[in-house]
């Protein structure tokens, strides 16, 4: 019974941690010595922390949880993905303690949380850059923000219009439920004006996963895509981005994100329900200090104040 319950939860990337958190104390006790088992359980009853949200953050959150639990055996952290909206919705419903988000909570979401008696508190835990990627055989090396915007709205339709080969452009995007989608739309397609009228061209292919974008860009010379810097595999070509036609073209990297020269970067957040205290506060403090050393390993950019 305990096994089948856990099997159902193994879908998300939180596999290892869920195993630890969910199944470790779900096993059958020794039937001959029930009192001993009970006593032992009472001694080490772990503090369980549910952490859900952004798919961009899920691998980093998992690494943090694993490292933290190794040093704090009394704490169990279970991490699942599902998207920023999923994490925020769970925080609003009160089913989790920490929501991962790659975007800020909307006014509607904050209002919904307040209605449930929850005041969300925001913590910046890492920095992320969105890289525009293309096939390694594509000769285009740099694009301005407005060129990327024009490509994604469908105003420019061939690579030759941005200095490349005479080939049609195939636009790839994450699904509209992804935090990366919203960020890219507001920051790039609408060039920083969230209330702008620009929309993704209806011909944009919406891929259900990062893997879908990677596969298509690797195979297809016509394709242009975008994804979190941490998810860009070495077999894709990153495009240097310029803020304007006279500005320098900057490749995304930890250095250029931290010094602010790369234009498409953003903070990543963890939200708690109310000011955190006790174990939750201890964990967040750790994440923002010692945890930062894991950030770089996973392809994100550590916070500027940290020693990394």
């Amino acid at each position, binding site marked *: 019974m305990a096994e089948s319950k856990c099997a159902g939860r193994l879908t998300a990337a939180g596999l290892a941690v869920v195993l630890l958190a969910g199944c470790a104390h779900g096993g059958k006790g020794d039937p001959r010595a029930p009192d001993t088992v009970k006593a032992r359980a009472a001694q080490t009853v772990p503090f369980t922390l549910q952490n859900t949200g952004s798919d961009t953050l899920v691998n980093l959150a998992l690494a943090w949880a694993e490292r933290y639990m190794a040093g704090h055996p009394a704490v169990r952290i279970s991490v699942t993905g599902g*998207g920023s909206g999923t994490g925020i919705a769970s925080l609003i419903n009160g089913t989790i303690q920490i929501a991962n988000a790659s975007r800020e909570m909307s006014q509607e979401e904050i209002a919904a949380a307040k209605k449930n008696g929850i005041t969300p508190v925001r913590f910046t835990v890492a920095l992320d850059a969105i890289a525009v990627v293309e096939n390694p055989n594509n000769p285009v090396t740099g694009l301005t923000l407005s060129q990327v915007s024009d490509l994604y709205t469908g105003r420019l339709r061939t690579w030759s219009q941005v200095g490349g080969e005479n080939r049609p452009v195939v636009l790839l995007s994450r699904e509209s439920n992804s935090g990366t989608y919203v960020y890219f739309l507001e920051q790039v397609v609408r060039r920083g004006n969230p209330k702008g009228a620009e929309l993704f061209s209806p011909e944009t292919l919406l891929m259900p996963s990062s893997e879908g974008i990677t*596969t*298509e860009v690797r195979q297809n010379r016509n394709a242009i895509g975008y994804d979190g810097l941490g998810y860009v595999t070495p077999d894709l070509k990153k495009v240097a981005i310029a803020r304007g036609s006279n500005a320098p073209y900057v490749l995304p990297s930890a250095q250029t994100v931290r010094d602010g020269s790369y234009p498409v970067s953003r903070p990543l957040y963890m939200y708690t329900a109310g000011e955190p205290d006790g174990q939750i506060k201890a964990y967040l403090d750790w994440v923002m200090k010692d945890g930062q050393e894991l950030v770089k390993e996973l392809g994100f950019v550590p916070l500027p104040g940290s020693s990394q």
Partner: protein
Amino acid sequence: MSGAASGGAARVSPPLRKSRTRAGEFAVEAFIRVLGFSTIGFVVLIFLFLLREGVPAFFEVPLNGFFSTRWYPTFKLFGTLPLILGSVLVTVASIAIALPLGVATAVFVREVAPRWAREVLKPVIEVLAGIPSVVLGFFGMTYVAPLVRELLGAPTGLTAFSGALLLAYMALPTIISVAEDALDSVPRSYRDAGLAMGATRWQTIWRVVVPAGRSGILTAVMLGMGRAIGETMAVMMVTGNAAVMPTSLAFLFKPVRTMTATIAAEMGEVARGSTHYHALFGIGIILFVLTFLINLAAAKAIFQKRRRGGLR
């Protein structure tokens, strides 16, 4: 049937035993009846749930907005027309591919293949039906889509056509089994008569046997279509999911977005009770109605076949 059986038993059984048998039989019959009706009950409940969650969409989004041409849920544009046409395009194309292949396979298995080949082929075809669609989708994404792009010179291989290919593959086992049953039910005397009239084997199959099983083959197509239009995972992985209006046949070789892929991709994220949420259930209702109509057509074809005894 049961009356005749218990009447026969009454002559040999003592009265007490007879009544116990009757009571037991009644209990079993009642149990089976409850199970049978509960299935219908569940279907009705699911439909009611779908209506409860989906009907508000038709009030929150004006009807001309719900059937307009732009699907941008993030910006409150809920035009489902591109999704409906996307599903129809992919489904019809898949049946156009699967029908000739399926009927030809059924004819081969039933009419041409030697007995041993038939006994190998039938279970193999049934195994085809058991391949999980996500596996097919992954195969489609990594092999079929690049192949389609290179062979057709299309900008991308994530097209309606790639989806149709995978769906055809998925609908094939259904079409083959049902079409084969239909050919099986054509009386042997038809074949004998055809051959006795001096027709060749091919003429007998093509002019006599296949037309006689026509309504059964139509059922096979309808069932295959029902399978194809409801398929989600593989379609979401290979059709590109771009919500464009497929206004001409050329869109077969361009990305499209189907109703099922839209529901699957977006349902995980929507806020419960929002317009977007209701709109997704609204799409569910449209899908349900389409599938229902297809199954109704299939049932009608079966009914006609019974009435005519498979004669036409």
